[in-house]
């Protein structure tokens, strides 16, 4: 589906622009500029307002990023459980720094705040799917699932 068809599915839904952005994210992994302009038109907002909504929420990205979004929690429970070691393992495995995407466009690496799986810290998520009690040694196998 192209971005216009995706957004059209939410036309007429009150406050539906955020749901439309989620749907765009599932398809493109980020919100392309022309999709934001189209959403503004459909939901009768100025482009600035539609852009303001896109940049307010941390899950939405207005810049192109890797298809599979890997996020690591940096909140206090994960912080004391050794999240820093997992960050180092992720950067090593993907060959990029936090906040970057791989050159092949397959992976984006980001920090997140608490994802609500604190019974098993540290936690990472890939495209929203949580991986629990993650150790640096497990990182290559988790990443391999998405290669």
């Amino acid at each position, binding site marked *: 589906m192209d971005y216009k068809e995706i957004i059209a599915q939410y036309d007429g839904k009150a406050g539906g*622009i*955020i749901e439309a952005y989620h749907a765009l994210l599932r398809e493109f992994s980020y919100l392309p500029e022309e999709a934001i302009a189209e959403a503004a038109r459909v939901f009768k907002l100025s482009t600035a307002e539609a852009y303001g909504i896109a940049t*307010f929420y941390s899950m939405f990205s207005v810049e192109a990023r890797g298809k599979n979004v890997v996020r690591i929690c940096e909140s206090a429970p994960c912080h*004391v459980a050794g999240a820093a070691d997992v960050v180092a393992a992720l950067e090593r495995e993907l060959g990029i720094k936090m906040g970057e995407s791989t050159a092949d466009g397959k992976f984006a690496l980001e920090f997140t705040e608490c994802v609500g799986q*604190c*019974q098993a810290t540290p936690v990472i998520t890939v495209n929203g799917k949580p991986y629990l009690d993650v150790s640096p040694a497990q990182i290559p196998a988790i990443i391999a699932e998405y290669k």
Partner: protein
Amino acid sequence: MAEEMRIVLRNYGKIDPLKIDDYLAQGGYKSLEKARAMNTADLIAEVKKSNLRGRGGAGFNCGMKWSFAAGAQADQKYVICNADEGEPGTYKDRLIMENDPHTLIEGMAICAYAIGATQGYIYLRGEYPFLVSTLNTAINQAKEKGLVKDFDIEVRSGAGAYVCGEETALIESIEGKRGEPRFKPPYPPSEGLWSKPTIVNNVETFANIPVIIEKGADWYASIGNPAYPGTKVFTLTGDINNRTFFEVPTNTTIREIVFQFGGGIPGDKKFKAVQIGGTSGAFIPDALLDTPVAFDSMSAIGATLGSGATFVIDESRDIVDVATRIAGFFEHESCGKCAPCREGTARTAELMEKINEGRGSNKDVTLLEKLGTVMSYSCLCGLGQAAPAPVLTTIKHFKADYEAKFV
């Protein structure tokens, strides 16, 4: 010896959450039927009498809140479930939704009948995408069986903004806007979603409702602490043997939570501090552990019950480093609408980093105290008002740890 008591988690592990018949077999939706046989004034009076207070952190009397929306005149009213639990260390609402979604739906439907609403929303945090289908399955089953009658519920997903746990910011987000808190008053029960009377309650609050209707207000009011009766779910994280969850009566003490239910500190290490209520909670030292967890008892020691998140750190932890990480959290999550929070969280993080890196002095601590005090009364919403608490309480109870890092 304190014992666990399960009200909101009564069906945990006993039913298949995707099978409504399992929930019905446990007496599910009988409370909704009973509520609908009552007149709405009596129903609200019953909820008020139970003294159930909001489990999202503010602790407002639930029945009282409902009475405001019930008394408001409008062509449409809304019931919203705040399922945006974003307090680090908290996952209690996920437990309820994942294991017993129908108790939430039943609680919302009882509220809808009480205030005269036909439309509900569950605002689900974006970090729980896997729960969308669980909730929709449950909603559709309740609808198909005709149990919720003309009451519709729609699930809306958040997108990673901690501030949207604040009820007016949450409402803005459902309306499709930036999730920035509104000026209050008006409060949502008189003017909420699309300016209509709206009840926003937490998942855990709604999950209590069916049991209160089934067993009666007097039964509920007699459990735990009389000023904040019932149970509370605690989720234990950090340096604790049992990294799990417990539902206990509200007269349980912090010491019982940490050492009895939590099993104490791993290894031979000693307890250093516990932060309760989420990342905006106070750090509590050993001397105050015999405090009951009830809302007002916690306020009396300058702490909060909040979400019930319980984050324990042992003596080997660098508490200034932990508080610095938390200051970074608030800098990131401040929505930027009001200056005291936008600037205050950034300057707090800056000063904390300076101290943590060994470049600070007592002057910086004095500045942090002054800034934190100003923020606690001048920020627009709870985020900014509570943000200084971890810094202020660690300065208060663990000043020596700060001094050890001074230049």
